[in-house]
């Protein structure tokens, strides 16, 4: 293993480059940068889950005070596109129009009013007259797949840009599956078999900054969009398509982002602000209200997951079957990829030779699914890691020992890596770094696993239980996504580091600067990091799929290595040495014997002003061939009130192998944020709909994300490994730890009460019912 101990910047908790400015409330966010004279947009949203717009009359609205224009299906380009921010061509259907003659969920776009003030826009929204032909809606999995069910996308125009299964006439967005070994035979060989269904709810990311975008025309008539996005480059491409304007005409700027967690991996507002700016010639702002974020933003796909397992008494798992239905709601972006990851990030975790995986994504007339931290793996882990405990219980083995006996280790591969890709075969891969056993041991010690007692031994009203789960995720989408970085030196030996990578609060600007600083043997504060702006920075796929550190980080390292060789070349001339005799240290080019040195500053001055002038600079790109998984073992202690079903989380331990933690403090922060989000997802968060498909709890109070009061003690343990293919040994960290909340807590509830929950969130009522059921 390469040692990280000698590293001077990497593996240190360097201060986050933007922390002070942010803590002072500086004007760094999209809404802080909006011109005072911007027009405002309010949307008329569909009140129906499924309806055709027979007629729409915007004339009265257009005449209202302050109204500058009204956009609706009658006056905008009608080009099918996909709003999901993915590589091109997307493995998703082009099933969306900017404005359509059909609405497919409560909260779908009908018409946008652009006016001087938000109040005027809202008044005019009320003056739009729409005559709907209300159609029968589809709200659940079985109804969507029933023969003769209403067809949600019955339009001719929608299509998939690459050949993947797409059957809109059956409400099927995508299908994916794999078979390995012989599933039926594996089930027969088992001493015990299991067949269980799990369900997960609709959930929302709840970044505290909601969706917000504004656009204006620059003096040359180009459209400049400033937007809270995770995917500036994909957004530029999608807006260009939707508006039918050249990519060249659009610039997308991502300022600081107030959180995203996946929901901003989407082109959601930008087409409308861009078109409104084109039509009015004025800056135009659109910010969603919190209720609109819930109803019309992106969500975590609800899933229904049937798990079948076969296990032998000795602890061998003989078969696994996962049949899942993924509800993408009214539009199909991310429909394929989310369920693909539900397999590819989960199935390989355990040794099982006989595998059946079958997944369908379906349309319903409900809110639209999107990318959400964990990306399908989160849902599948609830089912799989719950069943691991069920099986261990059945064969009388400690669930920790059962996991240790069966989990994947370094040097092994799995057929799912290749079988389950994103619209094409995935990349076969052998696991490199894996410190999962270390995670399990350290986490177990921290939670006090050895003192864990069986449910039968507990008495009293308040019962405590300990549960665990283990996980893997990935790092980047191999052989599809690309990240690039450019680096140049300035007079004083500082550097501009320009990246398309999208820091959305994760600290990637800091992490990338650390990587460059390590390679160049200088300090992080010497880097002016700029991310991301489609005019100014090189391309990057954006912030998703746990890729920025692993993928863009390697592009940065390569660019820094190139700059280093340029520095050494010039340094060699100054010092009259051969390049081989030189190295870099402390912002200098130095002779390896330490006898002479020249500073980056002096090299910069010489090359910029004096002799043989050129710009020391490099641009590098990176595409990965692997998606090395980070690993994690999560442990939780809960207390359950047997009379009310109320679950209190007492302590949560997340032991994580993210390879080299480039910035341990930020890695901990990523883990803690993901953990609490996972707990919140397990205990409280879900969309509640009325009978007409309208979300009823569309507010922070109604939806109930956890606050500081609800926070248990969260203990993060970073367990090092070294991933040879990552920058300085790094893998990803941001997504994996959202996966533990549901299964670890479900397992802890079982350990406390003897009752098992199969449906999340674990509300008082559900837990109480499970307890009653278990007493029968």
């Amino acid at each position, binding site marked *: 293993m390469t040692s990280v101990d000698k590293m001077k910047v990497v593996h240190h908790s360097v201060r986050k480059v933007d922390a002070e400015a*942010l803590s002072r409330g500086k004007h760094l966010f999209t809404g802080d940068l909006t011109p005072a004279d911007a027009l405002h947009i309010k949307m008329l949203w569909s009140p129906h889950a499924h309806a055709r717009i027979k007629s729409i009359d915007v004339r009265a609205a257009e005449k209202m005070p302050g109204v500058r224009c009204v956009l609706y299906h009658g006056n905008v380009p009608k080009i099918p596109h996909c709003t999901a921010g993915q590589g091109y061509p997307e493995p998703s259907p082009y099933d969306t129009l900017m404005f359509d003659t059909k609405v497919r969920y409560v909260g779908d776009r009908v018409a946008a009013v652009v006016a001087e003030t938000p109040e005027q826009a809202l008044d005019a929204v009320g003056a739009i007259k729409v005559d709907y032909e209300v159609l029968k809606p589809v709200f659940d999995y079985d109804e969507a797949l029933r023969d003769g069910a209403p067809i949600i996308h019955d339009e001719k125009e929608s299509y998939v840009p690459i050949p993947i299964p797409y059957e809109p006439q059956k409400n099927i967005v995508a299908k994916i599956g794999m078979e390995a070994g012989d599933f039926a035979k594996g089930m027969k060989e088992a001493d015990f078999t299991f067949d269980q269904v799990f369900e997960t709810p609709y959930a929302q990311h709840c970044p505290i900054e909601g969706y917000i975008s504004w656009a204006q025309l620059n003096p040359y008539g180009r459209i400049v969009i400033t937007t809270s996005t995770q995917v500036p480059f994909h957004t530029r491409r999608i807006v260009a398509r939707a508006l039918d304007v050249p990519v060249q005409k659009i610039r997308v700027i991502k300022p600081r982002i107030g959180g995203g967690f996946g929901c901003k991996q989407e082109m959601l507002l930008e087409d409308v602000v861009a078109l409104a700016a084109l039509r009015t010639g004025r800056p135009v702002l659109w910010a969603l209200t919190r209720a609109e974020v819930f109803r019309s933003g992106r969500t975590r796909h609800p899933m229904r997951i049937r798990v079948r397992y076969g296990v032998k008494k000795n602890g061998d798992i003989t078969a696994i079957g996962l049949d899942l239905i993924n509800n993408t709601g009214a539009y199909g972006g991310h429909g394929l990829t989310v369920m693909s990851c539900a397999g590819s990030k989960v199935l390989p975790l355990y040794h099982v030779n006989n595998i059946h995986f079958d997944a369908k994504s379906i349309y319903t007339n409900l809110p639209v699914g999107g990318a959400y931290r964990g990306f399908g793996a989160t849902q599948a882990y609830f089912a799989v890691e719950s069943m691991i405990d069920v099986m261990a219980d059945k064969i009388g083995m400690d669930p920790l020992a059962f996991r240790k006996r069966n989990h994947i280790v370094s040097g092994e591969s799995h057929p799912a890596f290749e079988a389950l890709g994103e619209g094409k075969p995935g990349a076969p891969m052998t696991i490199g770094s894996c410190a999962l056993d270390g995670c399990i041991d350290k986490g177990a010690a921290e939670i006090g696993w050895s003192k864990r007692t069986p449910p039968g031994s507990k008495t009293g009203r308040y019962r405590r239980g300990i549960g665990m789960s283990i996980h893997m995720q990935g790092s980047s989408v191999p052989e599809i996504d690309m990240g690039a970085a450019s680096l140049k030196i300035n007079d004083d030996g500082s550097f501009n580091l320009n990246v398309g990578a999208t820091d959305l609060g994760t600290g990637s600007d800091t992490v990338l600067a650390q990587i460059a600083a390590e390679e160049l043997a200088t300090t992080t504060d010497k880097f002016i990091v700029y991310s991301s702006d489609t005019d100014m920075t090189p391309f990057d796929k954006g912030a998703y799929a746990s890729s920025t550190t692993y993928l863009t980080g390697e592009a940065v390292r390569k660019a820094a290595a190139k700059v280093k060789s340029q520095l050494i070349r010039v340094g060699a001339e100054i010092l009259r040495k051969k390049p081989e005799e030189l190295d870099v240290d402390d912002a200098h080019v130095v002779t390896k014997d330490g006898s002479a040195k020249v500073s980056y500053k002096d090299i910069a001055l010489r090359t910029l002003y004096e002799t043989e002038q050129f710009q020391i600079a490099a641009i590098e790109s990176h595409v990965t061939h692997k998606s090395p998984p980070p690993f994690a073992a999560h442990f939780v202690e809960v207390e359950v009130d047997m009379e009310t079903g109320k679950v209190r989380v007492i302590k949560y331990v997340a032991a994580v192998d993210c390879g080299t933690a480039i910035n341990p403090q930020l890695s901990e922060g990523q883990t803690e944020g993901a953990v609490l989000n996972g707990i919140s997802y397990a205990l409280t968060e879900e969309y509640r709909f009325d009978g007409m498909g309208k979300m009823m709890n569309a507010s922070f109070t109604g939806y109930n994300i956890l606050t500081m009061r609800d926070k248990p003690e969260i203990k993060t343990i970073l367990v090092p490994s070294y991933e040879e293919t990552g920058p300085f040994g790094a893998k990803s960290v941001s997504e994996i730890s959202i996966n533990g909340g549901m299964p670890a807590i479900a397992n802890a509830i079982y350990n406390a009460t003897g009752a098992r929950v199969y449906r999340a969130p674990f509300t008082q009522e559900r837990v109480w019912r499970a307890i009653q059921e278990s007493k029968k």
Partner: protein
Amino acid sequence: MNKKTISFTLNGESREFDIDPNERLLGLLRRNGFKGTKYGCLEGTCGACTVIMDGKAVDSCLVFAFQAHGRNVVTIEGLGDAGTPHEIQQALIEEGAVQCGYCTPGMVLSAKAMFDETPTPDDETIRLHMDGNLCRCTGYEKIWSAMKKVSAKHERGGKR
């Protein structure tokens, strides 16, 4: 629109503002360039818009602008000086509690109101005061340790 003029002390300076009768303090502040005050819900549940009014942390999205008349208002722009952030900001930065930073100004002001009243708060006091500020990035763990750090500093009589 019938405009009205109000005056209040803002970050130590007495100021006059024209307001619309329905306008909230949040809107007034941001319209006048005090955009350090963020917003996440406009209905008093996220705390991103927290300012201090007469020593108490309030959600500026709920307070009508006219209610600020004659009061003493502190926003994030009023904390720290050019070179040095306020000790609460400093603690949040050091602990790594600033991720996206969107919740941070509100957190800082809720914490300031708390520490001004109770320099060494116990755990329950911290929970009580900070409960109204949502953060989706940090899991509150590092915000919590920053609060403990400031409290410990006060306990040592202000010395680090």
